[in-house]
């Protein structure tokens, strides 16, 4: 997991969790507030309704008490012979516009008078809603009991029911009456009637209606929540990106430096904080590395310089022994490099050959001066001694492990081999002769023929070219001869550049 992703996640966690929590609490409190408001309103309604019912029940009770005290109650003694009580009860029932009936029973439960005339003379079977004792004007004992059968239907007119909200009655045993319908989910408030304690009035409202505002805004609320979350995520992304930017710059610069090996590059972060400190340290480190690297490069160059000079000097020694001019070595070096490049060797190898080729005659230091500087032709013995210089040079150089000296050894060993196998010391032929040897052979012969020697005068160019054409595939590698003639101008230019200046004096 990347640092950036971690940072983003951290930001999200740090900001999103409190955000979600807050929104959740806000939503919940909105719901709670709504619940409080709705239930409070319902409670108010319920209280009003219950108050009215209680008032009505009180009136009923008072009416019954008044009836119970009226003079006509003396008709209990005549068993309501003239129906005066019954008529009074009936008219009271009509006054109250009630469902149900009043009954006057004697203490044994026999109905003496009733607003329902059919029941007179029978035993009371009904459970009374309210009952009041009846006393006569001249008796201390109750002479009867006034009952009322008051079905809950009477409460119906106090209930203003709608589709969303209705009242119903709950009895003490848990059963309900007057319930118009059952709601799936509802809010309920209830209140017990003061004047009928075993009856509880319940006001019920459909939840979806009570919370209609909540449901209406629910979608918007969720969208708002999601929008907030997306905003926080975006903010987290941008902040993390911004935070990570200098580090990414640092990392990219480090990568670039590694790729280009240009240790002079610097990170450009101008900050006063820890990141700035880090980039300054980084820059210091890089410039330190650059400095150290430069030292190493310089040292390396010094070594290479020295090596080159040593090799060149060694080559010069060989030449000076045979009284050949120092420029011969230089020209052979340049010819060799040119041939090597056109032959297809790379720049590095060509350069190495250029540096190694001057040593091709190093073996001559071991040849006696008498032989070496003898004017005129060698006899058999002298020739044999002279020819050992190739092997001698090889022997001198072969012990080094340096590639330059290794190349020099090959050059010294093989620069007198001929392409057709008639050379010395090993009579190698064709491709068996190392390319260094083949190149140096051509370069050496070309320069030697064009220069004055103790034993001969310089050949003119036409003669040299004729010889070269003849020796193509015999002495020399035909490919190299082709290269030579193809780029002849360049070889002649080199000869002109490194012309022997003291030649005239000799």
């Amino acid at each position, binding site marked *: 997991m990347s640092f950036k992703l971690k940072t983003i996640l951290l930001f999200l966690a740090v900001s999103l969790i409190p955000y979600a929590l807050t929104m959740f609490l806000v939503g919940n409190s909105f719901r709670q507030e709504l619940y409080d408001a709705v239930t409070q309103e319902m409670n108010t309604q319920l209280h009003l309704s219950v108050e009215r019912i209680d008032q009505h029940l009180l009136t009923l009770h008072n009416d019954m008490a008044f009836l119970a005290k009226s003079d006509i109650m*003396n008709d209990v*003694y005549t068993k309501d012979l003239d129906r005066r009580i019954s008529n009074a009860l009936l008219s009271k029932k009509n006054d109250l516009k009630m469902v149900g009936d009043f009954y006057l029973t004697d203490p044994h439960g026999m109905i003496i008078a009733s607003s329902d005339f059919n029941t007179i003379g029978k035993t009371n079977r009904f459970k009374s809603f309210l009952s009041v004792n009846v006393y006569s004007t*001249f008796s201390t004992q109750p002479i009867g009991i006034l009952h009322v059968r008051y079905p809950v239907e009477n409460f119906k007119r106090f209930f203003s029911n709608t589709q969303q909200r209705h009242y119903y009655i709950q009895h003490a045993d848990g059963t309900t009456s007057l319930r118009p319908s059952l709601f799936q989910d509802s809010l309920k408030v209830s209140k017990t009637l003061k004047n009928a304690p075993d009856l509880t009035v319940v006001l019920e409202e459909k939840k979806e209606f009570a919370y209609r505002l909540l449901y209406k805004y629910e979608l918007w609320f969720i969208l708002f929540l999601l929008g907030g979350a997306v905003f926080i995520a975006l903010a987290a992304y941008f902040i993390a990106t911004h935070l990570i930017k200098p580090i990414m710059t640092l990392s990219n610069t480090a990568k670039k430096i590694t790729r280009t090996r240009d240790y002079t590059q610097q990170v450009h972060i101008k900050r006063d904080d820890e990141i700035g400190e880090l980039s300054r340290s980084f820059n210091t480190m890089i410039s330190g590395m650059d400095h150290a690297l430069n030292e190493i490069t310089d040292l390396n160059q010094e070594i290479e310089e020295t090596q080159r000079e040593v090799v060149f000097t060694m080559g010069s020694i060989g030449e000076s022994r045979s009284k050949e001019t120092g420029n011969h070595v230089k020209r052979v070096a340049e010819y060799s490099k040119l041939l090597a490049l056109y032959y297809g060797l790379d720049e590095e190898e060509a350069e190495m050959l250029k540096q190694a080729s001057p040593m091709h005659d190093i073996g001559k230091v071991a040849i006696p001066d008498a032989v070496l500087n003898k004017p005129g032709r060698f006899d058999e013995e002298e020739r044999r001694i002279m020819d050992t210089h190739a092997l001698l040079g090889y022997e001198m150089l072969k012990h080094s492990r340096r590639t330059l000296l290794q190349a020099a050894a090959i050059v010294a060993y093989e620069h007198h081999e001929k392409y057709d196998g008639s050379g010395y010391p090993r009579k190698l032929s064709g491709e068996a002769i190392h390319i260094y040897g083949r190149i140096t052979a051509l370069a050496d012969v070309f320069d030697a023929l064009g220069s004055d020697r103790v034993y001969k005068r310089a050949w003119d160019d036409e003669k040299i070219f004729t010889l070269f054409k003849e020796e193509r595939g015999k002495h020399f590698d035909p490919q190299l001869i082709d290269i030579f003639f193809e780029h002849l101008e360049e070889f002649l230019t080199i000869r002109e550049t490194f012309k022997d200046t003291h030649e005239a004096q000799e």
Partner: protein
Amino acid sequence: MKKLLIFYFLYGSLFGAEYSIIISKKITLSEITSQQIRDLFLMKRHAIGNQKIIPLNLLGQDPSRITFENEILKMDRDRLNTYWVKQHFQGLTPPITQPSHESIKAFVQNVEGAIGYIPSSMVDSSVKVIYEF
């Protein structure tokens, strides 16, 4: 006094007494004077001896009530009204009423000490006559 009583009995039997004052048979009281009846119905007394008496009037303008008021109370309706208006301020109310002779008879049967007037023809063994007029 005795003569007078006999006169009344005779009068009653001779001319066939129209109405009888009745009382519950459980009551030991056997006779009563018209003065006592008058006092009871005008709420001037509430008992005879130890016996509490509850007078009953008939509701309305029945001939029996008019006769009773004329014969026993000796007051016409105007005077009676004036009387009760006066008594009202002293906290006395007229006797309780029953709407019919039958209910008076039933009430007397059921309430000890209640007295009321019914036509003599309605008298039977369920009640006791203590006065006739």
